[in-house]
C-alpha cells in the first residue's frame, strides 16, 4: 500500500485547497441574497417551469450500453497485459468473446438503439434543404435554382460594367 500513500497525500492537499478557497470566499465575498437572485437562471425572466424530473430514456440506454463495453474492457486488459504467456489459447478466447460482444452491438445498432439524429428521410443539410433554404434565400436572385444558373451564365459570359469597375477599384486601392 506504500505506493498509494503519495496519491492519498495529494488528495488530502487537494481537499484542503478546496476547503481553504471556499473559506476565503466566505470571509471576503458579500452576502446580499435576494429572492430574485436565488431563482434558477432563465435569461432574466421569471422561470415558468421548474427543471424536469425525467429525461429521455436514450440517456439511460447509453449508460447501459457503456456497461457492456466496460465489462469487455475489464476482460480485455488482463489479456492485453498477459497475452504473451496465454498465447494462442488467449487469442482464440478473446476473439470468441469479442465476436459475441460485437454481434450483440450490431444487433442493437440495427434496432436503432443508438439513433439520436433526425430520421433517415429528413436529413438536415441534405440536397433538398440546401437548395431551398440557404442558396436561394441568401443569393441576390430569389427564385428557382435554374434562374441562378442562368444568371451565373450571363455574368461569366458577358462581364457587366459593374464587375469590371469593382475589380479595377479594388486593384487601385493600395
Amino acid at each position, binding site marked *: 500500500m506504500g505506493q498509494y500513500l503519495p496519491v492519498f497525500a495529494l488528495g488530502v492537499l487537494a481537499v484542503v485547497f478546496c476547503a481553504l478557497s471556499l473559506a476565503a470566499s466566505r470571509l471576503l465575498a458579500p452576502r446580499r441574497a435576494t429572492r430574485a437572485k436565488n431563482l434558477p437562471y432563465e435569461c432574466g425572466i421569471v422561470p415558468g417551469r421548474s427543471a424536469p424530473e425525467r429525461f429521455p430514456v436514450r440517456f439511460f440506454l*447509453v449508460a447501459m450500453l457503456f456497461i457492456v463495453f466496460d465489462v469487455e474492457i475489464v476482460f480485455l486488459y488482463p489479456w492485453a497485459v498477459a497475452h504473451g504467456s496465454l*498465447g494462442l489459447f488467449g487469442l482464440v478466447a478473446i476473439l470468441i468473446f469479442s465476436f459475441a460482444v460485437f454481434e450483440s452491438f450490431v444487433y442493437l445498432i440495427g434496432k436503432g438503439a443508438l439513433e439520436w439524429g433526425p430520421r433517415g428521410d429528413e436529413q438536415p443539410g441534405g440536397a433538398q434543404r440546401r437548395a431551398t433554404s440557404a442558396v436561394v434565400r441568401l443569393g441576390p436572385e430569389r427564385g428557382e435554382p435554374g434562374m441562378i444558373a442562368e444568371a451565373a451564365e450571363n455574368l461569366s459570359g458577358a462581364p457587366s460594367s459593374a464587375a469590371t469597375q469593382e475589380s479595377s477599384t479594388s486593384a487601385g486601392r493600395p
Partner: protein
Amino acid sequence: MSVFALDPAYIGGFGLSEALILIIKVVGAFGLLLVAVMLMIWFERKLVGDMQNRIGPARAGPWGILQTLADGVKLFFKEDLRPAKSDRLVYRLAPYMSLVPAFLVFSVVPVGGNFTSGDGTVTWFGNSTFLQVADPHVGILLVLALSSAAVYGIMLAGWSSGSKYSLLGSVRASAQMISYEAALGLSLAAVLLQAGSLSTHEIVAAQGGWNWNLWVTGLVPALVFVIAATAELNRPPFDLVEAEQELVGGFHTEYSSIRFALFFLAEFMNVITMSAIIVTLFLGGPDGPVLTERASWIWGVVWFFVKLVALLFMFVWFRATLPRLRYDQLMDVGWKFLIPLSLGWLLLLGALRVGRDRGWNTAAVVVVCVAAGAAAGVLLRLAVRSGRRESGELADAEADAGEAVNVGEPEKGS
C-alpha cells in the same frame, strides 16, 4: 528491473528521507499543477486571441501573464449564490468531486528521468526514486477510475442546481463522457498489449529509445485516443456540455464566485493531465535525446514539457478552428466509428503478436484480419441503415399515438 515496476523509494522501510521525498514530490506536483493551470488559461486566451487576430489579455503583468491570477482574486470577492431549489449538500460537494480527481490523475505521470540509456531513476537523499509522485501496479486503471469519478462531479453539479440548463448540460455530459470512455479504454488496450504492464513507469520504459507507441501501435490507437480524450475533456469541437448558445453554461450555470472558479480550475487541470497522459502513453513520456551525461534526467523533464506544450497547443488549435458537432454526430462518431475501429485494431495487433511468437506468416495474418475487419464493417454499415429505418418507424408510431392522445384532451384556455 522488476516485472511490476514500483517506485523503489517506497518499497523498503519508511524513514525520514522517504518522508522528505514524499513531501517534495507531493507539494511539487501540487504547485506545478496550479501554476500550469494559471499559465494554460493565459496560453489559451492569448493563442486564441492571436488566431482571431486580436491581442488577448495584455494588462495584468508582462504580456498579460498574470491575468488568470487577477481573475481568480476577483472571484474571491464575488457573491456566492446558492439557488433556492438546489440540493444543499450535493451542491456544495460537487466542486470537490470535480477538482480532487483532476489533481490525483497527475500523480502517476512520469515527468522526467533518463529512459534512453538508464532506467529512469534519480537519487535523492541516498534513495533512488522515479520522477513521478507514485507508481502503483495499476497506474492506468487509476487514471481511468479517476476520469470516471470526474463524471460524478459534473453530473451531481447539474442535478443539484435545480435549473433546467444545468440538468440538460449534465445529462449530456454524462452520456458523452461515458460513451467516449469506452473508446478511450479500448484504444488504450493497444498500449497495454505493447508494454505488457499497467504501470505508467513500465509503459514509458518500454518506449525508451524512440520506440514510441505512436508508431509502434500503428497510429490508429493514438488518433482514437486523442479524439476520445477531447470528448472526455468536453473541449471543442465536443463542447456540447456547455454549449453557450443553447445551455447558457451547462452544468455550472448556477455556480458563481469561487465555486465556479473551482470547476474552471478542474476543467483546465484535466486538459493538462490528459495531455500528460497522452505523452506518457503514446509519445514516449520523457524519452528523447540525452545531450549531456551529467544530470541526464534533466533532459527527460525538458522533453516531457516540450511534448506537453505541443499537445496543449493542439487542444487550443482545435478550439480556435473546429465548429461544434451536433449531438447525433457526436454519438455516431463515438459509438459507430471509434469503438469498432479501436476494438478491431486491438485484435489485429494481438493476432500479429501471437502470430510472431508462433512463427506464422505475417502477410497471411494481415490478409485474414483485413478480410474479417471488412466483413465486420459491412455488417455494421447494414446495421446502421436498418437502425435509421427502425427509429424512423418508431418515431412515426409515436407521432401517431401522440396525435391520438392530443385529440382526446380538451384544449387549455379555450
